């Protein structure tokens, strides 16, 4: 199997290299034969990488510890569910996984564009496979997961097979950790497709609407998956790391946020190009930036240039990534400068108070946030290089810089959709903004009376109400109009309104999801915690919860030993729930970890951690967090995901337009045939 896996990577690399050359030549010589050949090579790249992935999974699932990667990241008693996930638990496997996902995206991009974008496709294939060739070279030469274990002796090296493996890192043995990396990787890797289309459009000078229409959808999918990956990562951190939070501004967390933010900027500014033919250069810059940040994120995660709590797989691959990042920048920026003449704006701004300006301000905040987060993440490295002083830039810096910017963005989330394209009159401003402002103002006053004294939390909640009223108002106005004109009931009107313009109303649902996310974030300001040593019968109070320890039980599973605290909780004097936080000791890796017990509700989570056992008394050290509104973070993320899915569904208007275009194409072909005959 090791040979088969290696063969898959070698063949994959060969096919990728061939596809780069054939694609570029096919485009240059306008040779359909070469282009088709390049496309087939890219499909073969996918087949070969799939073969390599199957080979590694087979080795993991059959406990073949002769393979160094399997011996390092799996063990016999690991659940099958987690064995599958061991594929991306280490450096070598995760790079192979990255490359395989790239091959899937490439195959899909080729198959879905068999009859479209024919001029772009040779170069799209060349760029996709250029990236594929880089990653498969890394897998083959630097981080090969198909290395065999061997013992060095006087007689030479002897093959060696240990009786069991070291096992999967305990903190990775959590259900959302099985889905989180694939989602995150699908997000990172997927950004290569819009980049490939952008480069192809620049090379061929086909910088009209076509590439931007294609690119928008290919950006939305990875953007959505990256967002989902970030959310699942937060969920994992919340449930496993045991410090009561879900986001710590860790460098690796920041690295995943950066392409998501620049991708968000692109998904907004692309609308200005589609509607008004403006911001053409800027959109190319955003596509390049997003792809660069995706690779940069992978680089940060994998190279270990910055310290991170998520650094599960580090090695010396940093310099290779640095070279690749330089190539990306030089190639794309040079191409962009060479094509500036073809990227002139078709229109000018009519007014400062317009949808276009709203998007510009949205882009401004998003990119400023990207800069601040990037700067804070890299500052320790820069400081070390400039002053030779080791400093830390932690959560307080990011909170101080990102929260005000986040609030500005939140405001624009509500205000932007209310601005009209080209120009917004004062009457229109008044008509659209008065009600949301009044509702937000009144709610803000109530919040103050209710005792909300944390400024940012208060401001966040006020803005959330403002945005919710703005967005829901759009649904309400649209549905009311349909009720009058199409004589539909409210539910029908709402459904038809949404399905008629899925992109717009899907976007509004995404904005509502963002509101829910921010409500969840605001809850952090009201977090309370308590800590104490608890023996049988001991009590611990946290806010209005009273925890009673009913004892400790220990047990053993094939994979780990555990100590579990049995805790009964009453709330305001009434029986509430039973909680069982655990301390686990994984046998294969010989590492301890905590298994947090969480009782989630819509208003707050009760979060109980068994930190350890008091050395002197033998009592359980229990930490309790009462985390308000955390559930809304997960719900908000889900709403963002569903809204994006809806926006991806072709709307009725789009389908009608596609039908008309199809009919027109057929008519033109018939005319051509007629005139030809």
């Amino acid at each position, binding site marked *: 199997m090791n040979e088969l896996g290696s063969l898959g990577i070698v063949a994959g690399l060969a096919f990728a290299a061939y596809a780069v050359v054939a694609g570029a030549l096919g485009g240059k010589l306008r040779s359909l034969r070469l282009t088709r050949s390049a496309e087939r090579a890219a499909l073969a790249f996918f087949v070969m990488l799939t073969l390599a992935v199957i080979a590694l999974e087979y080795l993991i699932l059959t406990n073949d510890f002769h393979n160094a990667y399997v011996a390092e990241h799996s063990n016999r008693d690991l659940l099958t569910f987690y064995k599958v996930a061991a594929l991306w638990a280490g450096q070598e496997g995760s790079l192979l996984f990255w490359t395989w996902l790239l091959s899937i995206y490439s195959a899909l991009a080729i198959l879905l564009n068999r009859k479209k974008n024919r001029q772009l496709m040779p170069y799209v294939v060349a760029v996709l496979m250029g990236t594929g060739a880089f990653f498969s070279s890394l897998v083959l030469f630097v981080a090969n997961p198909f290395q065999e274990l061997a013992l060095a002796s006087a007689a030479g090296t002897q093959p060696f097979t240990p009786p069991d493996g070291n096992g999967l890192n305990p903190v990775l043995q959590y259900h959302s950790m099985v889905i989180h990396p694939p989602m995150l990787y699908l997000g990172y890797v997927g950004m290569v497709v819009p980049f490939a289309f952008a480069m192809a459009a620049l090379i061929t000078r086909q910088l009209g609407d076509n590439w931007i229409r294609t690119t928008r959808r290919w950006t939305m999918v990875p953007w959505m998956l990256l967002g989902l990956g970030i959310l699942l990562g937060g969920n994992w951190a919340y449930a496993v790391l045991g410090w009561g939070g879900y986001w710590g501004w860790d460098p690796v967390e920041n690295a995943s946020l950066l392409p998501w933010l620049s991708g968000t900027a692109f998904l907004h500014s692309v609308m200005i190009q589609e509607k008004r033919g403006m911001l053409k250069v800027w959109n190319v810059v955003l596509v390049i930036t997003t792809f660069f940040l995706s690779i940069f994120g992978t680089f940060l995660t994998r190279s270990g240039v910055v310290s991170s709590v998520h650094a599960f797989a580090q090695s010396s691959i940093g310099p290779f990534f640095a070279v690749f990042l330089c190539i990306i920048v030089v190639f794309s920026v040079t191409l962009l400068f060479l094509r500036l003449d073809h990227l002139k704006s078709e229109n000018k701004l009519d007014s400062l108070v317009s949808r276009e300006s709203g998007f510009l301000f949205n882009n*401004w905040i998003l990119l400023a946030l990207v800069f601040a987060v990037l700067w804070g993440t890299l500052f320790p490295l820069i400081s070390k290089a400039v002053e030779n002083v080791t400093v830390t830039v*932690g959560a307080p810096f990011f909170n101080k*810089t990102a929260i005000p910017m986040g609030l500005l963005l939140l405001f624009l989330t509500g205000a932007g959709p209310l601005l009209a394209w080209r120009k917004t009159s*004062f009457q229109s401003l008044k008509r659209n903004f008065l009600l949301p402002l009044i509702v937000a103002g009144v709610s803000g006053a109530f919040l103050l009376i209710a005792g909300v004294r944390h400024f940012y939390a208060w401001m966040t909640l006020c803005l959330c109400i403002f945005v919710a009223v703005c967005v829901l108002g759009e649904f309400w106005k649209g549905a009311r109009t349909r009720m009058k004109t199409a004589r539909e009931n409210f539910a029908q009107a709402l459904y038809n*309104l949404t399905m008629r313009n899925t992109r717009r109303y899907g976007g509004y649902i995404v904005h509502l999801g963002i509101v829910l996310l921010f409500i969840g974030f605001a809850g952090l300001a009201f977090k309370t915690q308590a800590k104490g040593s608890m023996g049988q019968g001991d009590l611990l109070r946290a806010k209005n919860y009273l925890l009673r320890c009913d004892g400790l039980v220990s047990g053993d599973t094939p994979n780990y030993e555990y100590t579990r605290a049995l805790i009964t909780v009453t709330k305001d004097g009434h029986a509430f729930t039973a909680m069982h936080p655990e301390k686990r000791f994984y046998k294969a890796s010989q590492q301890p970890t905590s298994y947090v017990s969480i009782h989630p509700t819509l208003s707050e989570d009760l979060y109980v951690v068994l930190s350890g056992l008091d050395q002197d008394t033998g009592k359980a050290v229990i930490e309790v967090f009462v985390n308000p509104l955390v559930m809304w973070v997960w719900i908000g993320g889900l709403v963002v995901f569903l809204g994006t899915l809806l926006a991806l569904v072709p709307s009725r208007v789009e389908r009608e337009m596609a039908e008309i275009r199809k009919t027109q194409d057929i008519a033109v072909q018939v005319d051509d045939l007629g005139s030809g005959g």
Partner: protein
Amino acid sequence: MRGSAAHRLALSREGDPEGLVRPAALASMAAPGPPLQRVKMEIANRKLQKNTVRNISQQLSKWPVFVLALGLGAASLTRADGPKKPTLESIGDQVMCLCGCVATLNHCPHRDCATVAEMRPIIAKEIAEGKDETTILQDLAIRYGVQVLAVPPAKGFSLTVWILPGVGLLGGLWLVVAVVRRWRKPSPVAAGLPTKSLDPKLLAAVEEEMKELSH
């Protein structure tokens, strides 16, 4: 009328939810009469719009005062508690755990962390001695080195970590405003080009439709 050139023009002027025609915008374009009269009407409309823009700026100029007053009021209420005394938790959020976890003292994922066990009593002792937050942080930086602080001190080269995001934000704002100013069309009235800003093709199509409607 839906889907017609006049309709599209009206939409492009006012950007309407659910594609509804705004009566004012449509009326201005649908006005019958010879081209000269329409051009005059267009100029009058432009003047009206210019006045409207002036109105907006006048109205908006009052808003910041109101919003500022509201914000300051709220801020004073939300900050009414004044500076808080340092606690183990508040210091723990500003100090890094040096066990290698790359998290603050409060967020160290290692449940039996020796570094946390060492540092927390030191902080608790300083709090009990009545020291303020700055002094405690300074003491910790002397004891463990500057990397123990979750954010570098705002002096020397480290000052840039605080300054540059602000510079980036303001620089970005300046850039956006400059771009908006540069891209803004000159006022047609001021430029003496009453119909220049309208798409000639669209305008011609509107005129054709007007002709058809008048028959």
